[in-house]
């Protein structure tokens, strides 16, 4: 063997390769979870009010959002309008829909390409730097709709800017087994939480517990249901001036009640429900009540008509502080990389589609799945014809947002919602039976979030 051969023999080659492979493993394990992309360009200042708006004719706008998987008809309404409107205005609108849309939106923002209009449901505050102020569209809708309900500015306004246009709200109403309640002598679901508890205890004794998603594993139910109880007992996360007020006697009262409800009337698994678990449990006949939108009733009508006939809906019961509903808001926004003709086209398309004249078809197709945020819809023919969903019309003005009673959402409030902190509070209280301990734990979490923001 020559000296030169010794420089790169099999062993050296393997060693070098092992070093490379190890480097790959190391880099893969420590690489950022976020897409590795070039740093963002500074936001296009004043993009919303471009001085010389070019004609939108010939523009192409890209829509990026999650599909309406539960009710594909909603996507059909959007697509049909877009096709027609695009043809009339010589604008091409393309749609990209993905259930895991968050990384795609973030990639579009960071790369400055791939999307103009986005559809999302979590608070827009995390994209605040990347969204165009859409106050002109909001002003038009607000004017024709009789003024937005408080839910809308709360979720959408940040530092005086409308980050998006809310397209409606999901409301949680009580889904209950009418036949089982009749056996207990009830014609309808009780009006108060205390009455609901005493009924629930009777039902649980017969193996028909409630399924209250007191959980931090469900982004929808876990944010909504605990707040129905929290607010009914006078607890809330924030004061109107922005100060935190979760650690209060009212919150402890709500938690103590939730613990009783869980122990005496609840499904033991409800503290670990994900968003589909209560639907599945109700459809399987394992629980007698759960707060939800119409995503139990509509599938039951289709696949289990007997169950659909034996269930009904009611408003959330009242507590010492009153009756409260919860609304979560899907929204559309325009990314600030959109400029010129595309920006004009995106704004014009949103203003046209979301106007009362055109958007009623969307609500109608939803059959109560998504409700309006404008009071003038009260008299529009958009409400479900099915009498068992008639409750939707009463619900839509009742709902409050997560973070109540803040007038506008803050980053901390958005994180509390994103991380399902109130769901965790109720889950911990019900799992351990220790309301004070659960509240102390969650206050530490909130302190962490405050520190990190």
């Amino acid at each position, binding site marked *: 063997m020559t000296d030169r051969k010794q*420089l790169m023999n099999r062993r050296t080659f393997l060693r070098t390769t092992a070093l490379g492979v190890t480097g790959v493993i190391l880099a893969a394990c420590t690489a950022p979870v976020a897409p590795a992309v070039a740093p963002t360009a500074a936001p296009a200042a004043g993009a919303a009010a471009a001085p010389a708006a070019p004609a939108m004719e010939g523009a192409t706008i890209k829509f990026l959002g999650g599909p309406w998987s539960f009710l594909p008809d909603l996507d059909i309404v959007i697509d049909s309008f877009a096709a027609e409107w695009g043809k009339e205005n010589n604008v091409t609108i393309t749609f990209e829909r993905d259930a895991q849309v968050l990384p795609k939106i973030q990639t579009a923002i960071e790369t400055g390409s791939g999307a103009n209009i986005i559809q999302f449901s979590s608070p827009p505050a995390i994209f605040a730097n990347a969204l165009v102020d859409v106050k002109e569209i909001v002003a038009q809708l607000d004017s024709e709709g009789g003024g937005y309900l408080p839910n809308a500015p709360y979720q959408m306004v940040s530092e005086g800017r409308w980050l998006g246009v809310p397209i409606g709200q999901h409301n949680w109403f009580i889904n209950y087994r009418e036949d089982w309640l009749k056996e207990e002598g009830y014609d309808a679901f009780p009006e108060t939480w205390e009455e609901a508890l005493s009924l629930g205890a009777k039902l649980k004794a017969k193996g028909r517990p409630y399924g209250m998603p007191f959980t931090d594993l469900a982004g929808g139910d876990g944010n909504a249901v605990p707040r129905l109880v929290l607010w009914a007992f006078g607890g809330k996360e924030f004061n109107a001036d922005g100060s935190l007020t979760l650690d209060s006697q009212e919150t402890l009262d709500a938690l103590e009640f939730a613990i009783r409800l869980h122990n005496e009337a609840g499904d*033991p698994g409800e503290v670990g429900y994900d968003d589909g678990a209560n639907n599945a449990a109700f459809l399987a006949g394992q629980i007698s009540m759960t707060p939800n939108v119409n995503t139990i009733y509509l599938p039951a009508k289709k696949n289990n008509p007997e169950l659909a006939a034996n269930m009904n809906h009611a408003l959330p019961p009242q507590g010492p502080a009153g009756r409260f509903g919860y609304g979560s808001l899907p929204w559309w926004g325009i990314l600030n990389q959109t400029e010129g003709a595309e920006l004009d086209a995106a704004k014009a398309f949103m203003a046209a589609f979301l106007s009362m004249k055109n958007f009623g078809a969307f609500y109608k197709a939803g059959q109560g799945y998504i409700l309006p945020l404008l009071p003038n819809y009260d008299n529009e023919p958009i409400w479900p014809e099915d009498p068992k969903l008639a409750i939707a019309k009463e619900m839509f003005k009742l709902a409050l947002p997560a973070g109540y009673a803040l007038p506008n959402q803050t980053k901390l409030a958005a994180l509390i919602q994103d991380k399902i902190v109130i769901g965790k509070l109720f889950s911990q209280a019900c799992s351990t039976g220790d309301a004070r301990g659960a509240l102390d734990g969650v206050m530490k*979490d909130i302190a962490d979030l405050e520190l990190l923001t």
Partner: protein
Amino acid sequence: MDFATRSQPRSLGSTISRLLHKDSSLGYILLSPGFIFLTVMMAYPFFYAVYLSFTDKQIGAPANFTGLLNYTKLLSTTLFSKTVLNSVIYTTFALILKFCGGLALGVMLNRQFIGQRVVRALLLLPWIMPTVFSTMIWSWIFHPTFSIINDILVTKTGLLSEPVPFLLDETWAMASLIFINVWRGVPFFGITFLAAIQSVSPEIIEASKIDGASPWGSFWRITFPMILPVVVIVMLISTIGTLGDFDLPFLLTRGGPNNATTLFALTAYTLSLQSGMIGLGAAVTMTMFPVLVVLVIVSLISVRRQQQQD
């Protein structure tokens, strides 16, 4: 045409030819595509992540250098201390159990029995099955309401009066997570250990038997020391993978209940992607780096020692 012009192609060709025929340079030439690929695809994201961890980078906003602020913030949160503790517990228990299970499996598969090849192939199933799919099945098995195990233990047989809170209780949730990781990882350990055991010369084992060694003694005093380099490498590679595990806790528990199963990668994901705080998320991943560097160095030393033994 002058001499220089005429001689240049010949000179270039001969240089290339010389390089291709020299073992010392040929190796580097062959390695270069892989090296360039690694630099572009791995080194750039890595160094970009290092840079981001020292900035206040948020989604859609420019990154501003903030020094060690992200790290000091993280160190003062209970979320991070819980993440570190959870990751240590998860990795330690999962590795010990995978080692024990893998060794037992390797020894068992080394014995001759009918259907040995079929069993070997079947045992690999958990490892080759996509994690998303297998975790989805386990999430049904451990489901808070529809768990088949609870159905059998509580409803069907009445052996338990209350369902087991697989994913509801903090300790049970971590135990469930570790169990699935072990279930998924044991086949790889087993097959790798089996290959190492089979490379041990049967003559040595025979000689030990003739000298009166028991099977137990023969295994621990002869076989195990001989497969030790493989054991060390497998353990180290698995430590890196387990410490950075994301898909299993993300799909099964989302880090809950009460952050009891939040691991490094999941915390980084929730901070960077869900909350838009890219800089903080990058800082979480960077805190793993020193540990991983130590493990990789140990791993490389082991590889080198094994090569020297060869």
